[in-house]
């Protein structure tokens, strides 16, 4: 257990050093993109843990991001809290919201759960329009973020945002990595693979499901606070249904249940549209066509990845490079799918151990 923690901490420190070196080398806009990627990594990792490990689905994590973002904005505007205090506080507020929703969600599964969380994604952000006095209505809440004075007057604020968001993301990932390798993570896999068998071994399925929801919402809330810190504006238009769908896409694309997959998903979401827009506009396409090419490219990437790597990018990489990488390194952040989870959890062997994730959900609703 302590060995795992140390290993994850070491990995985080190495990643932090790499990000630091990159942020100093790259221009101010790339720094901004690093911050954006950090936001999406956290949000996608939280969703990926929920879907990939506990077997529940959520189309409402964009709404939890809104909760975190509004909490962060209100704390920064009215109480002038610094980022290091705002981030955990916003995550905690989103966790409470996640707990409330999770209690209801634990009773639902499959498309019913998807539908209920979809409702959340649609309804919650428009609350801001109902209480314009507190939430600023459609205009939202505008923040001011500046780099600390001791970094010098010419220090780009986007680099500061990149540092803060990356640090927050790395801390969140270390905690998640440990959580998924712990007894809780094993129990989640058990209820995912076979809730009945897991219950027979004495696991409290409902409580584990609620816990997974809380963890997922916490991550989304932290990501929302990071987004507020990065874009310096929180408004309902940022938390539309398409955000929730983008998170789900990122999680599936990267590889469900894997934290490294969250990074791939975030890279695709943030970088593909920018890169493709640059290419499309530099080739002199008509604006109507050029405007829609990023969306088309996104779709093509999604289709191609799903066809080639049904387990997502991380799954595909493992399949290609698996024999080349020492086993303990690939296992660093991923659940071990080759051993039946219920065995790991100390229970009975699952009767259908080799079924892919999610089939139980479908079966339950047929």
């Amino acid at each position: 257990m302590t060995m795992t923690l140390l290993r994850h901490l070491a990995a985080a420190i190495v990643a932090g050093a790499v990000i630091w070196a990159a942020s100093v080398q790259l221009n101010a806009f790339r720094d901004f993109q690093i911050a954006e990627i950090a936001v999406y990594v956290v949000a996608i990792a939280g969703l990926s843990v929920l879907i990939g490990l506990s077997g529940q689905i959520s189309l409402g994590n964009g709404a939890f991001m809104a909760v975190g973002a509004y909490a962060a904005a209100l704390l920064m505007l009215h109480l002038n809290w610094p980022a290091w205090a705002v981030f955990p506080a916003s995550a905690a507020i989103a966790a409470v919201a996640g707990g409330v929703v999770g209690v209801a969600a634990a009773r639902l599964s499959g498309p019913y759960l998807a539908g209920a969380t979809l409702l959340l994604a649609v309804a919650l952000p428009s609350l801001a329009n109902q209480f314009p006095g507190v939430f600023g209505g459609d205009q939202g809440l505008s923040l001011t973020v500046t780099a600390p004075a001791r970094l010098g007057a010419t220090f780009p604020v986007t680099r500061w945002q990149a540092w803060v968001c990356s640090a927050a993301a790395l801390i969140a990932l270390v905690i998640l990595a440990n959580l998924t390798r712990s007894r809780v993570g094993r129990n989640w896999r058990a209820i995912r693979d076979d809730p009945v068998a897991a219950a027979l071994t004495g696991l409290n399925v409902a409580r584990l499901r609620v816990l997974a929801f809380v963890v997922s919402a916490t991550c989304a809330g932290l990501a929302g606070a990071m987004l507020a810190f990065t874009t310096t504006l929180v408004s309902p238009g940022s938390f539309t249904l398409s955000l929730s769908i983008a998170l789900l896409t990122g999680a599936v694309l990267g590889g469900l249940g894997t934290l490294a997959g969250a990074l791939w998903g975030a890279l695709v979401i943030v970088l593909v549209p920018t890169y493709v827009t640059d290419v499309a506009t530099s080739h002199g396409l008509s604006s109507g066509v050029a405007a829609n090419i990023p969306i088309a490219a996104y779709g093509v990437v999604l289709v191609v990845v799903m066809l080639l790597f049904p387990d997502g990018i991380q799954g595909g990489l493992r399949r290609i490079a698996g024999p080349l990488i020492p086993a303990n390194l690939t296992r660093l952040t991923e659940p071990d799918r080759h051993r039946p989870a219920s065995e790991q959890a100390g229970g009975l062997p699952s009767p259908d151990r080799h079924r892919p994730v999610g089939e139980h959900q479908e079966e339950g609703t047929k």
Partner: protein
Amino acid sequence: MNRSHRTRTLAVAAVVAAALVAAGCGSSSSGGSALAASAPGITKTQILIGSHQPLTGPAAPGYSEIAPASNAYFQYVNAHGGIYGRKIKYTYLDDAYDPSKTASVVRQLVLQDSVYSIFDGLGTPTHLAVVKYLNSAKVPDVFVASGCDCWNNPTTYPETFGWQLDYIREGKILGQYVKQHFAGKKIGLFFQDDEFGMDGVKGLSYEIPASQIVSKQSYVPTNVNIGPQVAALKAAGAQVVVSFAIPAFNALLKLASLKLSFSPTLVASNVGTDPITLGGLLQAFAKQAGATVNGNALTQGIITDGYLPTLGDTGNSWIALFKKVHDQYDAKAPFDGNVLYGEAVAYTFVQAMLKAGKNPTRADLTKAISGGLPQGPAVAPYDYSATDHGGMTGAFIGVIKNGVIVQQGPVLTTDTTPTGAVSPYSGTQAPAPSSGMP
């Protein structure tokens, strides 16, 4: 022999004269000092400007035509000598009307592409996501494509300038018309539940006596079921409905009223009454519901206002100019209100750049606009000064007849205060220059 010699001499003389004229033009356009890279985004040959636009997503229909139309006018300028010889390059990126994406694409334009200025950034919630950033980075943020009064704040946002008629002034101008022409009638209000609708209602309430307003109904753009609001307007006995709504919701309002056999006089903000857009939406929505309507017949008689010459006024020199540019550079788009808007705001930008000087810094552009701009295509003057960054100050009242807006009465100007009078504009709009260049 003699004759051919003379011809040759004449030809030589003509060539020399042409060369001299060309040299003269060249030297007058580069003046005394040579062109220099005087600011980020400005090179010896190019001025790079950027914008965020909803090219995809919910706000794209109609609004996605604006930036290509601006670009069409810039291409026209580039083909006619550019700005002091420099060509304008206009990079507009898609933000899908999502403020988070706006924050990202505007930073890309400023930090990576090093644009000289942000021009015509579209939308109130989207542009609010970047207005602080642009001002702290000291990037000129000119002619925001939104009528929110919030851009006019020179102390907090010295770099930001509005352009189109703000919604408070528009509300006052429509309100005065309602007060004068529908005295004693019951008035209902229908408006979008955000800054746009509420600023409009504020302006209306400065003019229309409160006792006449029998019902105030708002909608949110994400909920297309406005049956309850229309029923409430009918129940309150409204004889006139004043609407601050986007085109889709004016169409829904009209159709829902038809269904309830409710036929008040409709007075509506310019934002939602481009007859081509509105007529098309009416037919499309009716078709979805299994009915056939005549878009032109339904828009007939809607009272609205306009701050640019009307598209139907083909004799107007501004319309003729913008139609010519449209046909040459942007012919695939329909020549509608959005295209007119895009070209007119681009014209204003060229006016400002010419005024900013041959080798402008970023501060020269904001200084040039603060010093006031000639009226150009707008029907009323701009109020740009060191203490006012608003933009247009007036509009005319128009009525839709056979799919075009027909001007009624004079151009009216006013201010944004509760007591400022709405009065006829005494000046006249100068015709468009024959060269098409400011």
